């Protein structure tokens, strides 16, 4: 393959611009390889996050030709190389520098979600029993590598900046994993409804589309939780029951 032009975003929170770099593209190369090559050849201070280079750690999230992707899993062969390849940082978070964003908001959100609270152990030796089918259901969400591409693409965060009142698809799925955990006894529905802004999601499924782990966020996590909230708080018969039920 020939030399390819990359338009890479260079800048910080005060502003920036696309800068052109040329580098050789060889067989099997991914976009992250190109970024590393550019670093080594012409821009040693080009800021970029990465770790595993195998789609397992979720560090190298960026927007390649406008699409939210992991750079390590985006093969050059799948991109048109007769025109420049653009690489820019995620848009839903404040920029630190070049391709690196400040994603600390995500880490703060997680600490606010009620932690795992298991039922009493099933066996005398302090262990539990679970069936594989129940395990499979939550394992889908536990596959999440926390790349935050779903957060990046969610219009509630990206366009409407509701970071204060909406936790985003990643943490709805995180809550779903806890709520559907076979051993968990905690109740997070009130938080989901009130503080976590579950109602903001209008199921456009953008998050599902960009998930590199192919987690069906909308269908398997968000919609079932919306249903649970509706059942719990908006079902008229249940509401009637609640009026007479003694408070916990």
């Amino acid at each position: 393959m020939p030399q390819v032009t990359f338009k890479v975003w260079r800048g910080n929170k005060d502003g920036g611009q696309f800068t052109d770099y040329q580098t050789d593209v060889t067989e099997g190369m991914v976009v992250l390889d190109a970024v590393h090559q550019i670093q080594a050849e012409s821009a040693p201070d080009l800021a970029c996050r990465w770790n595993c280079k195998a789609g397992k750690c979720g560090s190298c999230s960026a927007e390649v030709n406008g699409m939210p992707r992991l750079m390590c899993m985006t093969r050059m062969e799948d991109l048109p190389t007769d025109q420049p390849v653009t690489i820019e940082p995620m848009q839903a978070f404040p920029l630190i520098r070049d391709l690196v964003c400040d994603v600390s908001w995500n880490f703060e959100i997680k600490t606010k979600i009620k932690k795992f609270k298991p039922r009493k152990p099933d066996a005398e030796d302090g262990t539990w029993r679970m069936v594989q089918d129940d395990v499979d259901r939550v394992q889908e969400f536990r596959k999440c590598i926390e790349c935050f591409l779903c957060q990046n693409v969610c219009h509630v965060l990206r366009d409407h900046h509701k970071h204060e009142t909406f936790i985003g698809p990643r943490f709805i799925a995180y809550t779903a994993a806890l709520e559907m955990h076979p051993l968990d006894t905690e109740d997070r529905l009130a938080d989901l409804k009130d503080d976590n802004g579950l109602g903001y999601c209008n199921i456009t499924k953008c998050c599902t589309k960009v998930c590199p782990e192919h987690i069906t966020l909308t269908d398997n996590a968000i919609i079932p939780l919306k249903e649970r909230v509706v059942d719990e708080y908006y079902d008229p018969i249940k509401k009637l029951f609640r009026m007479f039920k003694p408070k916990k």
Partner: protein
Amino acid sequence: MREFTTHEYDVLVIGAGGAGLRAAIEASGSGVTCGLICKSLLGKAHTVMAEGGMAAALGNVDDRDSWSTHFADTMRGGQYLNNWRMAELHAKESPDRVNELEAWGAVMDRTKDGKILQRNFGGHKYPRLAHVGDRTGLEMIRTLQDHGIHQGIKVHMEVTVVELLMEGGRVVGAFAYEREHGRFIVFKAKAVVMATGGIGRAFKITSNSWEYTGDGQALAYEAGADLIDMEFIQFHPTGMVWPPSVRGILVTEGVRGEGGILTNSEGRRFMFDDIPDAYTSSTSDNEEEGWRYVTGDKSARRPPELLTRDHVARCIVREVKEGRGSPHGGVFLDIAWIKEHIKDAEGHIKKKLPSMYHQFKELAGLDITKEPMEIGPTTHYVMGGIRVDAETQMSTVPGLFAAGECAAGLHGANRLGGNSLSDLVVFGKRAGEYATKYAKENSAGQINNDQVNKIANWAEAPFDRGDKAENPFTIQSDLQVMMQDKVGIVREENELNEALGELEKYKARAEHASADVNRDYNPGWHTALDLKNLLTVSEATARSALLRKESRGAHTRLDHPDKDEQEAKLNNVVRKGPDGAMQIERVPIPPIREDLAQIIEENK
């Protein structure tokens, strides 16, 4: 003195993979203040890459398993250079640590009766690895992370430690920079736990990310700690070899645990050709028996693909060298063949090895349910590291503890797959526990301003190198090629001597590694600073490898191809001499306790 941001903790944990997180959880749960430093973001450390599972003698799948068998397997795998007390503690405590993860929310695969499922792995006599498909490490790190964030641990993300701060012979803190703005930070601590992982970036072909530059080992060395067994570097037999950009990325041993076979260009299962004496009684000599083992027949012996990693890697190198390799210089690993035995092989493979399926499909355009993979050895793990006390995990420096890959002793000359994840939680907990005890018994030390100023100046030097400035990426990349060539899978005296000569030149070149004057998130600067640690661990490895004149475990000498009984009694210990030069000493392995010797004998 210049002013720096300062944080003060009772216990400071450096490194936030499995071992660091487990240590921090232990410390913060014991009534002391705890700071946790991550070189990357929280949850991205290399633990996340671990695939196959976590070894613990739960006996859920085969009730013949027990801690004593696990102990004997670990010692045999390590060719008896292991710290036997660590191997004993590890085997005894790992089941509790695995169950504890479940209590904290981990969701592992199940047996039919609802217990934690266990799988076969190289060198383990019984199915022993608790797992989640082939993403066990992600499950472990996420469980520890999500539990830890509710414990009051103060997490410092994207912070790199440059030097340990000393008072007399004791550790009293650490000097670091944060990536975001390149500002320096002084951490004061009564006790420090090193949990920084490996040294894989010293080699060209590696499964390790940019972080693994031997920081923990090198910082401890500079602080006066002993390093031990540094010649033993595990080259995992199965890394990807094609396309070039993914060369070195790990292919889990779980592929072989699920029945994957290794073949050469002639289609021959070459692993049957060379079965070491210590394993002949437990290894099948025909394909039919091997398959029965994989499918759970307790009377069958395991297939030769599940021999220890050092041996499998050597056999692969032999096949390639003798011209029977695959088109891109590896051999074939075939899991698709199980369709001969299983009806829905495709579904089975996708269920058991989902991320391997994903990895090959997306990075190599290859469907592993239909075609064999091309694989070859990749630098994976260092058995050697900081010498620690088995019970407390304290190094030879007071107040400095170590756990996980950067500590040494448990694995001896070769680590068994699955023993790393259990190592992290068993000894992470111990390090946290004893660091806490130390912090409670000792008052805070005094930070030496001269040391702080000196190291701050050193860290800023790459911004102002003058005429002889050199690109740090070039130096690092050249070093990796040199180490791969001369201190790699097979070694000999001439090349090791050459490597030591080369390393002196690299030390000089590192003095000229330069960076653009920009402190914000500048990878060039960080790479320039990492070179020092990389050079320290490279030298420790080369010197130790030169001194061990035998082939044992992961250390293979062309000029000394056999085991030597005298060498078997010694560990190599590296430390910084009074003149600043690296010293190496041979230390006899303490005689093993009688009851443990008997367990080994009974399991032979």
